[in-house]
């Protein structure tokens, strides 16, 4: 495995094509078939009320704001019915840190979903889990066990941003810090609840801080093996308090390739067409990605920041096949359920 120093050296200086070729060779070794997967799911943002007020976020509203909302349970169930009807196999329910919703609200929601549908619930980021636990006065582990018992299958990897407190203090000072995020993930893995991990680049972090982020994920993965995938997003500056520029696709592809090379112990590297568009999304397949994530029947958070790319199953299959790979729909555990 690469040392942090080697990783940094590569990220800073290695030629983009050399990075791509090395990442591609490693992908080929880990996934010897020519298969690239995607999932059909829906993001349901149950509420946009959030006490964290992160500077990079365009989605949240303070409680009492005219655009603030909480979806009633029947509305959530309707959305899940539509998801199932559209061939979806997963829901990703995420919201803000709503000060008045308690753990029972979430447990009731999960039970109602599982009672009516056969669908994977890949929901709530570490940030939300920790908040639920604190609101309920329970340990993170107990909270996760209750959620798991009510039907929560796995955690998405959001809220990681950059796992370096210097950066977090600048962009999301009220959000959980690095150790807390990792602690929630470790607790989840310890009860057999697998997760993914993300990284958001372009938040003002240094290259060394990106490596530090990857190192923290890699180290925890060595210990628990609970991360299914690693996903790099690029920060979307539209309508946010932080503002600024988005990082280039050049940088995105280099970082994506390096993430494959650095985290040899994470099986799946996901390319983000959602933040990069389908044209760079397709190119991630030459730079080490083996999965293109979800076609996302609904994605409010990214859309709020002014980025809206549309994807359908047909377009996804075309994108994958256009790069010489075979397209396959997967479930949350990365098991292939349909080939094209």
């Amino acid at each position: 495995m690469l040392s942090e120093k080697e990783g940094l050296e590569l990220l800073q200086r290695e030629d983009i094509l050399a990075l791509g070729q090395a990442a591609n060779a490693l992908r080929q070794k880990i996934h010897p078939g020519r298969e690239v997967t995607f999932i059909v799911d829906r993001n349901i943002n149950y509420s946009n009320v959030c006490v964290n007020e992160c500077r990079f976020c365009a989605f949240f509203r303070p409680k009492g704001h005219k655009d603030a909302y909480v979806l009633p349970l029947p509305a959530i169930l309707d959305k899940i019915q539509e998801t199932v009807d559209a061939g979806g196999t997963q829901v990703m329910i995420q919201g803000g840190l709503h000060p008045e919703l308690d753990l029972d609200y979430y447990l009731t929601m999960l039970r109602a979903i599982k009672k009516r549908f056969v669908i994977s619930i890949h929901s709530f980021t570490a940030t939300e889990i920790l908040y639920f636990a604190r609101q309920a006065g329970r340990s993170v582990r107990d909270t996760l066990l209750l959620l798991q018992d009510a039907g929560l299958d796995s955690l998405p990897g959001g809220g990681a941003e950059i796992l370096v407190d210097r950066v977090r203090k600048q962009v999301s000072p009220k959000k959980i810090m690095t150790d807390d995020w990792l602690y929630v993930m470790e607790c989840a893995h310890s009860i057999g609840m697998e997760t993914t991990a993300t990284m958001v680049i372009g938040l003002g972090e240094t290259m060394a801080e990106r490596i530090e982020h990857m190192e923290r994920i890699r180290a925890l993965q060595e210990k628990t093996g609970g991360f299914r995938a690693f996903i790099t997003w690029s920060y979307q500056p539209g309508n946010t308090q932080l503002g600024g520029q988005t990082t280039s696709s050049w940088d995105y592809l280099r970082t994506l390739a390096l993430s494959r090379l650095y985290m040899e112990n994470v099986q799946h590297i996901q390319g983000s067409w959602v933040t990069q568009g389908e044209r760079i999304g397709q190119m991630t397949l030459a730079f080490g990605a083996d999965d293109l994530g979800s076609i996302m029947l609904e994605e409010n958070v990214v859309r709020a920041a002014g980025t809206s790319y549309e994807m359908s199953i047909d377009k996804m299959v075309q994108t994958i096949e256009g790069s010489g790979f075979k397209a396959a729909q997967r479930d949350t555990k990365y098991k292939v359920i349909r080939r094209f």
Partner: protein
Amino acid sequence: MSELQAAQKAAAGIRLSFAEARELYETADLLDLAVWARQAKERKSGRDVYYNVNRQINLSNICTAGCPLCAFSCTSEARQAFVLELEDVRRMIEQTAATTKGLSEIHMVSALHPEKDFTYYIDIVRLVKELLPQVHLKAFTPVEIVHFSEISGLSIEQVLRTLQAAGLDSLPGGGAEILDDEVRKVICPHKASSAQWIETMKTAHRLGILTNATMMYGHVESIEQRLRHLFTLRDIQDETGGFQAYVAFPFHPDNTKLSDLPKTGSWEDLRMIALSRLILDNFDHIKAFWIMLTQPIAQLSLAFGADDLDGTVEEEKIIHAAGAKTKTRISKEDIEAMICESGYTPVQRDTFYRPVESAQLEKMEVGKNVK
């Protein structure tokens, strides 16, 4: 065995045969193609990547050709129909000169207007050169030149000589589409044939008028026809040496009569850029047109053999009519930043790929040539 040979040739910069090019298209890994194409680029232009500060002008969209591939052209009755008269062009040029620092090229491509006679076009050329004598005028695709020949009764050579005398500096490379009449029958049945396009280019080169060459791909052509097109361009270049740059246009189907065709992916676009750099070993420059490719893919193409990002453009109507979601202008600073991030050196060029020195820029400065 033979694949190894094609790859070895590509890596060594040895001229490819058609069969070898075809083999590379079908079997070579995308990033391998990129590595070889980038080596070829560096043999031609070292660490330099070019751009220019230009302004595009479309004189009219009223066109008798009615090509199924086009979303821009219309009849004179259409709501969006327009024609620029001399006074409109004068205003446009004056405004551009006053607002565009370092403008070095006017790029003018238009339609086959049913009523405008050849004199109109000559007058436009004279006017542009009178207003901006130091700015290069690159205008009229071979399709337009053939049209001028038809409406004036002059030969292609006479048309070109007349325009040259009026001040025309070079020709863009458009209208080539795929140089195969079987394909043209479907996508552009009423415009210049392959033979006419080729004849116009060869004539221009003979008269000392340099041109570009293009290919529009990703519609009804086969891979065979696409590659043949590139070999046709290579043959012409062997004969005349008059092509400055090759530009690939991925087909944009929206609002055209071929709108049910899918758009090419970025994978295919970059593969074609790399492959064209390898096939067109006698072309000095491969241009990545960011308006068609999108900026991120245009930047990435610098690792796939392209050495020119075209220009700041300022206005673009034809490709945007076909659904392009890109901007219509980009600042000099943005282009330079894109190039620098790729590790190459940005060079602001004139149309002949000569670096534009700051002293020259001073001379072309805002409005100095405009009365």
